[in-house]
Each structure stands twice: as C-alpha cells, then as structure tokens.
C-alpha cells in the first residue's frame, strides 16, 4: 500500500482566551490517501473545522496547535513556517469555505481573484494566467467564462460564487482540497449541483478531498470514508457503507436517528439527541458524549474509551466495545471486539 497523502497524528489545538484554554481539538488522528474523499461530520463546535484550519496553519491568533503532527507528502505542516505554508496553500492544498457570499473580496473582480492565485504559485504571464482562469471557469461551468471574469462577486448568485471559489481552489491543481461546509449556505437545489460538481471534478482531477459537514446525507452521497467527531475527538471512523450499515457509537446512531425520512408516511416525530455539547473550557474526563448517551455507564464518566477496532478500518470510541461491557442491541452485537 502506498504512503498516505496526509497523515494526521494526535493533533491537539487549543484557543487561549481570557476565560481559559478552550480545547477545541483533542488528539485527532486520521489518514488520507491520494484521490480519496474523507467526510468529517459533527455538530457545531465538534472541532471539525478547527482540525482543518490547524492543518492549513490558518488558526486565528488565539489558537495554537499544542501537540501532534500532520505529515503532508512527508513534511510536517505543523512545523512549517508561514512562508513554506503559504507556498503550499492554494497550490498543493486548497480550501473552500461555507459562505460564498462573504468569502470573495467584494472590491476585486472574480477574475482577478483567480488570476492572483495562479500568479502566486506558477511562473506564468498574466495573459497565461487569464487563459487558465477562463479554462477554470469553464471547468466549474460558469457560463460565458471570459466575460464573467470581469464581474464582481455581487453580480453572481450564491451557487455561482461557490463555483468561483471552487475555481480558485482548483487553480493550481491541488493534491488536497478541503471543503468546509461547502453547501451549507446554499439552497437545497444548488447544494446538489455543487456537490455533484465537486464529486465529478474530484474524479476527473484525482485529488483527495476532505469534506467537512454536519449533514450525513452529504457524506453518504459523496465520501469514501467518514470521521465522526464530537467534543474535539474522533468518535467513530470507517468506510461510508460500513459505518452507515453498522453505526458502532451511540452518537453516530443518534445522528442517524435524527435524520428525517421523507419516505416514511407514518407521522412520527424526529428523534433528537437530548442535552447539549460539552463545554470545551472544561472537557469531561471521560467520554465527552457520556452525559447525553442513553447507554452511559459509570465507566464512561470515569475514563476516556480508546478507539476499538471493528475491522475493515472501522473503529469506534465507546466502552460498550470493551470485552466485558454489557451487550447493547444494535451497537455491540455486530462489532468484533478489540
């Protein structure tokens, strides 16, 4: 097996605020192979965006990576200085953001915003960069590409702006694209178009993608593998089919149960997960999900469970997978204990 493109080990990031240390990411590890789509799912504050911002070196000033490594093609991104990182960003690793309405500079033409990225990373003339920008606009299917280069962001719809963002991200043929909730701010119909476009481009260009979302539906449609995050930690990870077929963490099960099923015509209520996410200023000593977990035991509050291996790359951080734990239908029955 080839070496992974990105290998994150024990990544921990904290924000140092006036109220104390907010432990946003706590020991996250994962691997990503070239051409793979990894979905990271979790609710707001679960640490999914901060994980990626840490890798990109784009944390706001109060945030700091306090531990861990992120090897990208053998180089540890965490230890690179700003010059080295900025040469990688937009070039080998690029990123698109949640809100296309605010992510583009309102005072520059969209063409300029694409062209400046190309000129930063490639030794080409302005005319060549422009030609490449037109090519990119055609690639992301912005109609009358050459003409639209001269438009300003406010002259585009939300979906079109996200296409511009994608064009910028793809400008230098990145090996890794990080998409942070790329469809959350868009209309449902536009969401599907953008996702389909991303998936198609990923297939054509062969880049790896990290797709951050809180929408399991998006993951099911797009990703190869999933990371479920909660309280700054990986709770469960595995191949998409496997994880959806056999969710092995009560939190994942809760997430799946809270999705409305439109084919279901018996009008029963959605099943929410009770309670609220942990306070990361004082994260619990044990499992962060324990206070909301229907199966919580004394052990769950006492100590943090390890990631139990379920085979085929499927792992879950839950004490229920301990050999001596009580059996819970739907969670432990199928799982091969570590």
């Amino acid at each position, binding site marked *: 097996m080839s070496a992974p493109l990105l290998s994150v080990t024990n990544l921990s990031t904290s924000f140092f605020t006036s109220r104390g240390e907010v432990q946003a990411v706590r020991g996250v590890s994962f691997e990503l192979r070239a051409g793979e789509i990894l979905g990271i799912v979790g609710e707001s504050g679960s640490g999914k965006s901060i994980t990626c911002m840490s890798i*990109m070196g*784009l944390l706001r000033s109060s945030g700091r990576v306090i531990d861990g490594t992120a090897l990208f093609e053998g180089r540890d991104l965490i230890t690179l200085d*700003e010059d080295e990182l*900025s*040469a*990688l*960003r*937009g*070039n080998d690793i*690029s*990123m698109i*953001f949640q*809100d296309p309405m*605010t*992510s*583009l*500079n*309102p*005072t*520059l*033409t969209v063409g300029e915003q694409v062209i*400046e*990225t190309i000129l*930063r*990373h490639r030794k080409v003339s302005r005319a060549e960069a422009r030609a490449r920008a037109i090519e990119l606009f055609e690639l992301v299917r912005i109609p009358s590409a050459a003409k639209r280069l001269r438009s*300003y962001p*406010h002259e585009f719809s939300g979906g079109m702006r996200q296409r511009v*963002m994608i064009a*910028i991200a793809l400008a230098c043929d990145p090996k890794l694209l990080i998409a942070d909730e790329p469809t959350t701010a868009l209309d449902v119909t536009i969401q599907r178009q953008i996702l389909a476009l991303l998936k198609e481009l990923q297939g054509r260009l062969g880049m790896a993608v990290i797709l951050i979302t809180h929408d399991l539906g998006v993951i099911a449609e797009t990703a190869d593998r999933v990371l479920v995050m909660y309280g700054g930690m990986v709770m469960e990870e595995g191949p998409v089919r496997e994880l959806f077929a056999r969710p092995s963490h009560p939190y994942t099960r809760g997430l799946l149960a809270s999705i409305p099923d439109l084919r279901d015509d018996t009008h029963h209520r959605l099943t929410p997960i009770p309670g609220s996410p942990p306070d990361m200023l004082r994260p619990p000593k044990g499992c962060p999900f324990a206070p909301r977990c229907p199966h919580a035991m004394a052990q769950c509050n006492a100590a943090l469970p390890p990631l139990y291996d379920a085979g085929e790359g499927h792992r879950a951080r839950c004490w229920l997978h301990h050999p001596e734990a009580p059996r819970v239908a739907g969670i432990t029955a199928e799982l091969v204990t570590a």
Partner: protein
Amino acid sequence: MTAYVVQRMLLMLVTLFAIITLTFFLMHAVPGGPFTSEKILQPEIQAALNAKYHLDDPLWLQYLTYLKGVLSFDLGPSFKYAGMSVNQIIAEGLPVTMKTGALALICVVALGVPLGIVAALNRNRWPDTLVMVIATIGVAVPSYVIATVALYVFALRLGWVPTFGLDDWRGYFLPVFALSGFWISFIARLARSSLLETLQQDYMMTARAKGLRRGTVLFKHGLRNSLIPVVTVLGPVVANLLTGSFVIEQIFALPGIGRHFVLSITNRDYTAIMGITIFYAAVLMVMIFIVDMLYLVLDPRIKYRADAK
C-alpha cells in the same frame, strides 16, 4: 452616470440657495447691526451709513439685491473693513489658510492612516497601546491647548521655531501640528477599528488560504476595504482644514480666513458672514461630492443613478 452628476450639481445649487436664504434671514433676525456699538452714533450718521449700505431698504429687497450679487460672484463690500470687499477678504486670507490646511491634510493622511494600520496589526501589543494612548490624548485635548503648549516649548523655551507668522518655513511646523493633531488621532483610531473589522472578514481568510503573501493579503485585500470609512470622513476633514481655524490662526497670528469666520459674526459684518458661510458650504459640498465619486473607485458595489422622475 452623467445624468447623476448633473443632478448632483443642480442639487448642490439648490442646497446653496437654501443656505443663503436661511443664513440671510436668521442673521437679520438677530438684534443689532453692523453699526451698533457702545458708542451711540449721531442719528444722521447712522442714517447715512444705512443708506450707503442699503440697510434701510425693505429686507426682501436687500435679499434680492444680495442674491443678484452672489449670482455674479460678487459677495459685496465688507461693512467693517472700509474699502474691502468680501471677495478681497477671502482672496487675501485663503492662500495662507489653504497652505497650512493642505500641509495639515498631508500630515493627517500620511500619519493617521499608517498609525492606525500599525496599531491594528499589533492589536493589544505595545505599539497598539502607544498609538491609542497618543490618539486618545490627541482627540481629547483641545487644539488651543496643544497649540499653546507647543508654542511655549518649541518656540519660547527651545527657540526652534518662530512664535508667530509664516515668513520663515519653520513657522509652518506648529500651526500645522496644532491643526492636524486632532484629525491625525481621529483618523488613526478610525483606520485601526476599520482595519480590525476587515481583518475578521471571510475573504481575508480566503486570501490567506490561497497562499497569498502577507503583504498582498494586507494591502490588496485588506486596506482598500478598510479605507472606505476613512475616505468618508476625509471629505469633511478636507473642508474643515482648508477653511481654517479661528483658534489656531489667532494663536499663531496667521492672516487666514478662519478668524474672519468668527470675527464677522461678532462684528455683525453681514456681507462677510454671508460670504464666508457660502464659501464654506460650497467647499464642503464639493468635498462630499468628491468623496461620493471616490466610492465608485473604491467599492464596485456602488453604482449611482439619477432618480427617474
């Protein structure tokens, strides 16, 4: 666009007309007149003066006569300075005021904006604290205090600069410093908060995520957007600086028009009050117009259209 500019020009004329009318009648509504003083004049002399300056005409006639004069750019004779027209008063004082004002303006832009940037980029570290402490003092301490203290220290004690007048080039230092101190501080604070806000914008994150160099991110993406509020304020600041300051001109004995502004009122020098008010209003309106046009350059989202009627 052309239609819009024409519309704006017409509106400026209407505004100017309203200002002239209001000032004229308000001024005449105040008791007393240019020739009222402690020393009571002989009734004949009083009548002769009134007749000479048409003050015995009915008010509406005086108003119309004055308007006619303004239309031909004649602001009338000064009531207080015999033999001087208001046009002459402005023409004499303006070069002095404009020179100090323009120098002050250069200081405001060249110091205020960079200081604000330095403060914003070093937020909550010592350069920020230093700039903000100085800027707060600059905004809080009145210009006449700054002027007198500076005069005492640099002119009297150290003797580096003359105490009054502009015959020596060094004479410009203190008046320009006193004139610009407040606005440098004001602009520095504004530029700082505006840049801090811009730095938080999503597109700044995008610019960094694209791998752009720090300088490009800051100057190309940050500065232009954060300068929009600064430009908004600069319009009135220019008008303010170019029309002079009574206090500063008084303290440094500068023959500018700023002091006529105040003196004409206490003198009830009707034509001077009117003339200088019209002059100030015109400069202010032109500056605001220029700022509105600058927005077009700075922010492509802004488009002007003449109101369809």
